[in-house]
């Protein structure tokens, strides 16, 4: 059974609630909360200009820092930009825009993470990109690299092979494959 709380403007379920129902309830509440918070009566799926400006500013300062070789700050800026996008954007804003924005920013974050040796973070972001359907050789190159650095040799080879199946003549992937094979041979005595 569903209950509606007038004060918080949220619904909740009582009794045995299925996992899928819980997710639906959470989504309805998120939508309601952001609708209630919306001040503009004529809102559209167009992303809000002010949040876009904020996110863009953060991102650009990140890029500037990167150019000036202040990599830790750059990483922090871009991570914040992504967090901002997650928090400030309303759930009804166009998905395509939100997705592209996130993918774009994540790619930069991944490269910065890899350069600074934060391989596990990079791996998580790479997996996220893969989950959003961005199955491309560049992703597989970086994933193989991160996994090799983390010592996960079997998985590195598996992802490298997947990359090669997308682009069999990719030079970087071929080089990474040799590296995987060499290290696996040593691993297996």
């Amino acid at each position: 059974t569903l209950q509606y709380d007038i004060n918080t403007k949220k619904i909740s379920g009582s009794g045995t609630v299925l996992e899928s129902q819980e997710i639906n309830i959470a989504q309805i509440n998120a939508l309601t909360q952001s609708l209630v918070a919306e001040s503009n009566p004529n809102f559209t799926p167009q992303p809000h200009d002010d949040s876009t400006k904020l996110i863009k500013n953060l991102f650009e300062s990140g890029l500037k820092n990167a150019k000036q070789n202040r990599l830790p700050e750059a990483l922090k800026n871009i991570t914040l930009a992504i967090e901002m996008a997650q928090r400030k954007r309303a759930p009804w804003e166009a998905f395509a825009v939100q997705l592209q924005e996130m993918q774009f920013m994540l790619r930069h974050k991944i490269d910065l993470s890899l350069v600074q040796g934060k391989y596990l973070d990079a791996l998580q972001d790479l997996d996220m990109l893969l989950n959003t359907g961005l199955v491309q050789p560049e992703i597989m190159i970086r994933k193989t690299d991160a996994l090799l650095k983390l010592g996960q040799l079997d998985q590195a080879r598996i992802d490298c092979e997947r990359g090669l199946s997308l682009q069999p003549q990719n030079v970087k992937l071929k080089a990474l494959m040799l590296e995987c094979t060499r290290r696996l041979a040593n691993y297996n005595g």
Partner: protein
Amino acid sequence: QSYEYDESSETWPFFVLTLLLMVLIPLTILQVHKLLLGKSGGVDDTDDPDQNLIQKQLENVNDALVSRDVLRFRQVFDRKGKRGILNVKNVVIVVGWFLVASIVQRVMNNDAIVEAATGLFDPYSILSVSINANDREIKSAYRKLSVKFHPDKLSKDLSPEERTVMEEAYVQITKAYEALTDELTKENFLRYGHPDGPQNTTHGIALPRFLVDGVGSPLVVLFYVALLGVILPYFVSKWWSKTQLHTKKGIHVKTASYFVDRLINYKPSEVVTVDLIINWLSHAEEFKIFYPEFKQSDFEGLLHDHLNRREEPDKARRYARYRIVAKCHSLLHGLLDISCGFRNTDIANMTLETFKCIVQAVPHSPYRQIFQLPHVDRKKFSEGSIDEVCTLGKLFTYEDAKISKILGISDEKNLKETLTVASNIPNLKLLKAEFLVPGEPQVTLASTPHLSIKLLIRSAKHKAIPAENFPQEMMEEPQDFEFQKDPFAVMLKEPLLPYSYAPFFPTKRRDGICCLVGLQKDGKLLQTPVTIQRLSLKNLTKDFDKRQIKELNNDNFKPEDWEIGTIKIPLGQPAPNETGDVFFRVIVKSTDYFTSDLDFTVAMQVRD
């Protein structure tokens, strides 16, 4: 309105005899067949000497390490499923035939029946001719007999009684001849069984009067009511519910629907681990039926106890643990099947890893290849080792003395056992993988290719042999008609995989090799798993120690000496309708050991 009852016991013996024989004859044939077939060449035996040698070596270590408790459990477990001499079927057969014999005896002794039988008219026996006699033979037989029995031809010395008998016999002979030759008489004979036309026939009930009319009749009614109203429905409903309650793979429908639910609600953000699979297993309905007093968390605890080889002081809990672990075999196979149906590679892969963990009672640690070995001192192992040793292959790069230090084994005999197990665990090496269409040089549009994998089974102790060292001829397929008709027959020629080294698993089991096929493009599985149970492990008996052989050359390596294994996997769907390359990911894993499994990409080149 008035029925004749079987007071003289003429008919009911035949009725009972028919019922008995209807059941006994097929049952006896089946049992005899099973007995004969069971002795010669069943699923269990293998006469490959190398395979037997490896099995013996592993069994020796296995038997030394299996706990007495597990052995006791196996005795109880095996006895439940045992089909000994003294089982129900055999008793039924013996008792049944005994009853048949006694009824036949009774029939023979029953005068009324004998009398009725002799009353039957058999013209062939009267004329003393065979059933297949033609008209000429019948005529000549009649002439000969009539000569003997004709009243005018009879001898004068006979007494009146003897004369009457002879005259009667002559009448019979004439009748018999007419029954076979004269049209009208023949018709009578065929229709009524007697040349004189319809004889006296009686209709009755094949039961004595007292059972139907008198004292026994309520008993008979009660018997039928019990049979039709109680016994029959009981057995039918029991069988029906049993069929309904279990899926084709042998797991309970509730368990299967739980797994399906988990897979439907599977979130890609969830990292699949062995702990997750164990958690799913602990919800199995089979466990609840075995032990209704335990909760799901208890089952999960028992499984983790097994993985960590925790000592259990309580005997009942120990037996519960064995039973649960033994059941995991079919549950995991069921889950594997379901996850392949949902095309989920991660779950299927992790299910196979969980299988290995449960068989070997080893948690999914990075050192699991080492921990599956016997006598390993885990504490000493984690404290020592300068160089990271995670694999058996790496372990065998060290001399035996160093190995004993790394694994913390001081006893000479124990070390020998450990090394025996380590060197007899099959390692898989891919030599060649391709898609083949029997009879065609390449894969054409919309053809039905199958995947042909050539692999080398080697020991972790052996020096690595690159695939290039094996000439192409060794990996060629026979192109004869037999092969084209059934390319998978070659796999049946291999011997059965031996019993595994698995002293912590409650039942004795054979190794298996499970193959999964998926698409690289979307990363999802394509078809149900294929389990291989036949593969020659001959190469494991070879002496090819990597510590002694520095380089491969013509002296120490001859490719012909090595056995190349073949795995053929049928594809569930035909080749695509357009030319191009399709990339498949193939996973080939052992179900029982942590070893070097195969996980490779193979391209299907579809050409016009």
